[in-house]
């Protein structure tokens, strides 16, 4: 078998906001500074730019303004400027509107966008600058030479479900680069490999994640003024559970709504998708959606840990940017502008290092210095303890959030929340004692197929599609699953997965875990939340996955 190879100056893995901002910035620097032209390639697992992008989304345009000052003339798809913010505290059937919007949730000057449309546009901008955008190619493994990252191997294509090559078999390509910028998103499979191999998270607090589930709706005219941003706290989550809802109104009756659940809940029977359905059933939300039509569904994990969980983002031959590095402000619920900013800074660092002829870790450490001097640190450092504080419950978290704003985060000591979220999940007996009779979700709610849907229907609306004849891209240690995780936790994967990938099929021979891999919407929750960490998400054949049009 001959493996194709490709040599570039800068390889960017992941065509999201971070990766594309890096690509555009590199092209700009090249134009400004001249010199030998750099070859720049962007790898993206989705076939089309933006297809795997999912976010709320409210965009803080500060980075966009710096990257593409004439973004308006260039037709950046910003659906609506934010006109008004509302924050509600929900109880089961009532709601309390906060009289004052907490400063972090004030969105004046921001835009409601479809991240899918925005990234599609960004990719067009990058390609207009001569960048090679390779859609449908997933980075499978990191290529190293000694302690140095030298590039990425893309996944083989045309392998059947038994692992045998099909007639169309096309081996993965080895792409080598002077600098590889990893922008493979939240829980990126390659960044995960880097963190482990190079121990980049040493001395940092454990990463923290949440799962966001979102739908796009068309609702009757006049329901919600375009530019309205609504956030909610409280119901259907309980005191010690982190998360909340969002509703963003775009023009022409299009509404983006979703629910975020911290992936550090204790109840093994909690189902985040059920929480989302309960949120939609709340009178405040149900009223808005009544008579409307759900048009898209999707889910994605988000890095919530903040500044103290960001790994060392540079090493020999490589940088990490965007969600992959955890650059997200969970208190403002915003990460796009930070992803773009870190992408830009990574580009500048890579450019300077290549021009200096030294792309070692020592040289690329300039990236850390740039981050420290940038709005990224200015924004993330003060709120570095907020998510961790939510581990102590909603009220403590809110108090901390308020304190963070008042004091700009000048605490003497950081809150130490020393365990990864999945370790906080309790066993069935630990959480329920002996009361338990059935393994149904603790927050079970009915599905009416108008307002609320089951996960399988959601998957249909996510547009998720994979070549069916390929090996499962979810590697599960099935012994642990059936012998330990099942009895102790009652197979929580069947609940935390928002796409019904994991299913326990009852058969005469006993229950069996069935993996519906082609349902996967690439949210990464299973890789994060499994209590025994026995699920590993690897990229399926390039091009497979959701199709998040308009999300």
């Amino acid at each position, binding site marked *: 078998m001959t493996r194709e190879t*490709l040599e570039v100056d800068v390889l960017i893995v992941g065509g999201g906001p971070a990766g594309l901002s890096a690509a555009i910035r590199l092209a700009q620097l090249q134009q400004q500074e001249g010199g030998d032209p750099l070859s720049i390639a962007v790898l993206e697992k989705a076939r089309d730019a933006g297809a795997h992008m999912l976010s709320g989304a409210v965009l803080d345009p500060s980075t966009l303004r710096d990257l593409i000052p004439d973004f308006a003339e260039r037709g950046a798809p910003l659906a609506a400027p934010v006109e008004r913010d509302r924050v509600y505290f929900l109880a089961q059937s009532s709601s309390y509107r906060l009289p004052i919007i907490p400063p972090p949730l004030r969105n004046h000057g921001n835009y409601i966008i*479809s991240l899918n449309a925005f990234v599609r546009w960004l990719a067009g901008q990058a390609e207009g600058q001569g960048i090679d955008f390779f859609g449908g190619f997933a980075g499978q493994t990191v290529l190293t030479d000694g302690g140095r990252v030298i590039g990425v191997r*893309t996944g083989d294509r045309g392998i059947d479900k038994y692992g045998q090559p*099909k007639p*169309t078999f*096309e081996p993965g390509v080895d792409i080598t680069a002077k600098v590889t910028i990893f922008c493979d998103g939240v829980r990126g499979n390659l960044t995960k490999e880097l963190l482990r191999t190079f121990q980049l998270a040493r001395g940092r607090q454990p990463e923290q994640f949440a799962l966001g589930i979102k739908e796009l709706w068309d609702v009757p005219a006049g329901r919600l003024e375009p530019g309205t941003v609504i956030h909610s706290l409280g119901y259907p989550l309980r005191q010690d559970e982190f998360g909340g809802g969002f509703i963003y109104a775009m023009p022409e009756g299009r509404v983006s709504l979703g629910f975020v659940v911290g992936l550090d809940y204790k109840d093994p029977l909690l189902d985040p998708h059920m929480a989302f359905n309960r949120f939609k059933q709340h009178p405040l939300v149900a009223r808005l959606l009544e008579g409307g039509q759900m*048009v898209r569904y999707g889910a994605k994990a988000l890095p919530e840990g903040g500044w103290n969980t960001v790994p060392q983002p540079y090493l020999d031959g490589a940088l990490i940017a965007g969600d992959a590095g955890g650059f997200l402000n969970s208190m403002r619920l915003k990460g796009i502008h930070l992803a773009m900013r870190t992408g830009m800074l990574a580009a500048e660092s890579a450019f300077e290092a290549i021009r200096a002829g030294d792309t070692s870790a020592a040289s690329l450490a300039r990236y850390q210095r740039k981050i420290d001097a940038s709005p990224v640190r200015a924004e993330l450092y003060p709120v570095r303890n907020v998510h961790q504080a939510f581990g102590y419950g909603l009220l403590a978290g809110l108090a901390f959030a308020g304190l963070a704003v008042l004091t700009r985060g000048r605490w003497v000591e950081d809150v130490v929340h020393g365990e990864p979220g999945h370790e906080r999940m309790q066993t069935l007996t630990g959480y329920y004692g002996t009361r338990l009779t059935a393994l149904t979700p603790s927050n079970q709610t009915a599905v009416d197929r108008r307002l609320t849907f089951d996960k399988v229907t959601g998957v249909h*609306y996510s547009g998720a599609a994979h070549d069916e004849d390929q090996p499962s891209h979810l590697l599960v240690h099935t012994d642990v699953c059936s012998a330990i995780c099942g009895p102790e936790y009652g197979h929580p994967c069947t609940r935390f997965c928002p796409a019904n990938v994991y299913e326990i099929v009852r058969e005469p021979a006993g229950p069996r875990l069935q993996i519906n891999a082609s349902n996967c919407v690439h949210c990464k929750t299973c890789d994060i939340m499994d209590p025994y960490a026995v699920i590993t998400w690897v990229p399926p054949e390039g091009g497979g996955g959701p199709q998040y*049009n308009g999300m």
Partner: protein
Amino acid sequence: MKIAVCIKQVPAREWQPRLRDDKAWIREQDVSYEMNEPDAYALEESLRLREKHGGEVVVCSAGPTRVQQVLREALARGADRALHVEDESLSSADASVTAAAMAAAMADEKFDLVLTGLQSDDQGHGQTGVVLAERLGIPHSTIIMEVQIEGGALRVKRELEGGWFQWIAMPLPALLTIQSGINQLRYATLKGIMAAKKKEIRKVALPAGLQAGQQIVALSLPSRAKQTQIIGGSAAEAAKELVRRLREEARAL
């Protein structure tokens, strides 16, 4: 051999329909597009024929600016160059206009063989290929499962209904509409994608005054008027009643 392959860009498979306010066409703003799947098989067949017989593959499309995406994709998979009849009005053009536009652009090229997909996944007229052949004045055959070329003669296997097939011989130049599944599609390679950027896309203006054969009055979501009749009673009674209704009412037996 000089082979033309005609491709169309259509909304991606998982697209959820959304109509324009006048209902006469879809809302195009939020659609993501892809190569019409039947055309992908035609493209693959043209590449295989070129590998066997040498020559050139020219990928042709009539549509708005956005169709460059699928032209590039075809070039990345191996087509040598592209022909693009470009006009915004072509996004909702019917088969008559599309075929006439293509014929005008292709006439000078004197192709030996023209391949198209069976039909498009958007309007689905299933006419464009045959109309194009008529306009180019070349013979055609449709729903082709196999293509043989020997010494300038063409022999093709055409699918009939119900598991029947037929071999048909005809002289070149000719046009064939290719049945989906005739071959296995290759993947685009990185090198192919990079090479595609340097290949030529020749743009051709839409000739004026092309006559459409039909006009869309309105699009709608298909409605289902029927009421479900629940049949009760014991298992035996319900089964008996169901069989009776299938025989007498639905005439489905």
